[in-house]
């Protein structure tokens, strides 16, 4: 059954996204993914997995809509969407500018709405599966930048609203909540903060992108009755 799935991974060249691309392709899905920077990595990933890479600026709604138009025109409109793209940020409240706020929300929040709108409009009655990702920063009381935290908790709210709205059309929308994964946006973490995460998390370690990808892939391919839910891949933080 999974060999018929048409998957689109937003942020597919990222630290977690590339593992999701690999896992979905290995499970037999036809995978397309987006990247913004890292053309060489994306080319390698595409060659390795058979997935198709699309350079797409997720901060630009027109770019996202054009991608869906392209896939639709090729009779390859996805029925499985993973949003693994994220822009992280640091800084105190006093340092957040209107421009920083808007830039972060464009990728982390607005692209979710734009992609979901395009995705849902092109399902044509097919069931669909959507997995969004969010960092723990928006959900738990941990020291983080306010503009970043706002975007991550927005994804939780969107997961729940989208699950309710699209459930009657047999579209499931869930969120995988990610803790420190030893790379990706964790790379920007203060080493002392990372040490705290290890110390205070129940499993006392950071995770791996593969661990995150396994949860995302399971939800994307093998879930029928879970929607609006959260899978916390956080090591017990």
């Amino acid at each position, binding site marked *: 059954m999974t060999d018929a799935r048409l998957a689109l991974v937003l942020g597919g060249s990222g630290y977690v996204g590339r593992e999701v691309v690999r896992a979905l392709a290995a499970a037999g899905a036809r995978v397309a993914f987006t990247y913004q920077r890292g053309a060489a990595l994306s080319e390698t990933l595409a060659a390795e997995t058979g997935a198709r890479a699309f350079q797409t600026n997720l901060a630009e709604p027109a770019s996202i809509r054009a991608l869906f138009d392209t896939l639709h025109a090729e009779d390859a409109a996805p029925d499985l969407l993973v949003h693994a793209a994220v822009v992280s940020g640091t800084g105190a409240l006093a340092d957040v500018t209107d421009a920083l706020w808007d830039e972060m929300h464009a990728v982390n929040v607005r692209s979710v709405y734009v992609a979901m709108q395009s995705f849902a409009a092109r399902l044509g009655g097919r069931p669909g599966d959507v997995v969004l990702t969010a960092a723990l920063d928006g959900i738990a009381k941990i020291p983080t930048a306010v503009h970043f935290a706002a975007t991550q908790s927005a994804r939780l709210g969107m997961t729940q609203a989208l699950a309710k709205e699209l459930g009657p059309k047999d579209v499931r929308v869930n969120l995988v909540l990610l803790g420190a994964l030893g790379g990706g946006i964790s790379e920007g973490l203060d080493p002392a903060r990372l040490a705290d995460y290890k110390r205070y998390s129940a499993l006392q370690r950071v995770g791996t992108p593969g*661990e995150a990808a396994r949860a995302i892939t399971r939800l994307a391919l093998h879930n029928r009755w879970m929607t609006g*839910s959260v899978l916390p891949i956080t090591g017990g933080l």
Partner: protein
Amino acid sequence: MSGRLAGKRCLVTGGSRNLGRAIALAFAREGARVAFTYHTREDAAEETRALLEAAGASPLVLKGSVSDAAHVAAAVKAVETAYGGIDVLVNNAALTQVLPIALLEEAEWDAAMDTNVKGPYLFSRAALKSMIRAKKGHILNVGSFGADRVLDAPVHYAASKAALVGFSLALAKEIGRYGIAVNCLVPGLLETGLSARLPKHRVESYVAQAALGRLGTVEEVADLAAWLVSDENSFMTGGQVVIDGGL
């Protein structure tokens, strides 16, 4: 035997019927060695045994109350003796009565707490020795959508399942250092089990409110349970995983 749980030594409490049976079967199909407990329904337990054997498993079937410490000790010892240890414990056994608080007797309150909270404590404590020695393991506690929402649920049942969440969180923190994960699986209303005892309008209300517009099946929840206790799920602990059709 191949499968997601190949070689895993699993103990499921309350495995004779409904979700517990489905979990035992899902585990067996994924290659696990499965033991299950039951309390009163010997006929149902034998049916489950037959289903497991038909799936190629050779189950251990253990009779007793989860709130009886002697039964718990004997059951865990039997599994350890037969399998050499325990990798997965599913605290599924639970009881409830659909009653308003005014009609709820103190003995019913105590019985729910004994089965739904003390049982998981006794079984976890007993099974942990083997897991800590192995420095790995999964404990999966079966919660309820009534535990943390404003819903029509019997108060003793809701209170006991909320207690189970606190138990899961604290235990996850305490034993995470040994590489043991503790998670709480929170199913919504399923076609099999409690829904048969609810008034029709309550079931219809659930279906109307759930985004996916239907009750779940024990198989759907059991498949998730099998993934949650597998090696594929290696960085989740203290999680509450809700599968409720989008209620």
